[in-house]
């Protein structure tokens, strides 16, 4: 018989403590024209370097964290540190390499350009 009891004797390790921020779903506007899909998302208080946009396997995860660094005694508090996160399905026709975004006044404007093949094309009919 195997005398190795390590499997049972091993003390349970402490689960890693992760300081998770509460999640907020940002409100978004979505527009489209012939060249791109444009997404506006409200992310008040999020700095540019704290925003990440990940596109993987047809899913786009938009995430931004807000750290308010409040000082003093709170008389009232209606909003706090949070993570804005929302996941979208991205159509295959998007040219992922050309996705770009800008942040202004706490609004993220994300441009998702369509690939050349997906753009509408007018076919000219020749007279035979």
């Amino acid at each position, binding site marked *: 018989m195997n005398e190795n009891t390590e499997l049972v004797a091993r003390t349970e390790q402490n689960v890693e403590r992760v300081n998770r921020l509460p999640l907020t779903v940002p409100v978004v*506007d979505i*527009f489209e024209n012939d060249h791109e*899909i444009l997404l506006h998302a*409200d992310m008040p208080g999020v700095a540019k370097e704290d925003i990440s946009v990940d596109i993987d396997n047809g899913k786009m995860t938009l995430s931004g964290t807000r750290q308010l660094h409040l000082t003093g005694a709170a*008389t009232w508090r209606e*909003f*706090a540190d949070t993570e804005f996160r929302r996941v979208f399905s991205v159509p295959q026709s998007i040219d992922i390499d050309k996705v770009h975004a800008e942040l202004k*006044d706490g609004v993220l404007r994300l441009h998702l350009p369509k690939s050349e093949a997906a753009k509408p094309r007018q076919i000219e009919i020749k007279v035979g």
Partner: protein
Amino acid sequence: MITRMNNLDSLLGAMDLFRNRMNTMFNEFDRGVGWTGAETYPRTNLCDTGDNLEVIAELPGVSKADVNVKIQGNYLEISGTRKSDIPEGYKVHRIERETATFSRSFTLPYDVDANQVTATLKDGLLKMTLPKSEAAKPKQININ
């Protein structure tokens, strides 16, 4: 029959939690804001840092020119417009971000010196530092 102490503990813990919730709820009512739901716009935080009161308001997508702040004694009013930013020539799929005029007024716990108020608007947050008026500032008393 004696049940496990454990159960009693968790029961009392739950009651504590409930009591805390009730307390914060009553505090909210005391300051006249009531329930802060989605219709409360803009949402604000008020901090007391001793000499100053600091107000932060969430104003995403609002430019400097579209916000007005009025202060008189211990009355503060934040108003303005959230303009629509629908780009030209685009088809609209979804609109969740509201566009409207807004106005919210507060009674501050102290009188503030309106001449020395500083306000900045960055990343959609309006931060204001409101110095308390001389009479409202905390004073160190020397004991002889």
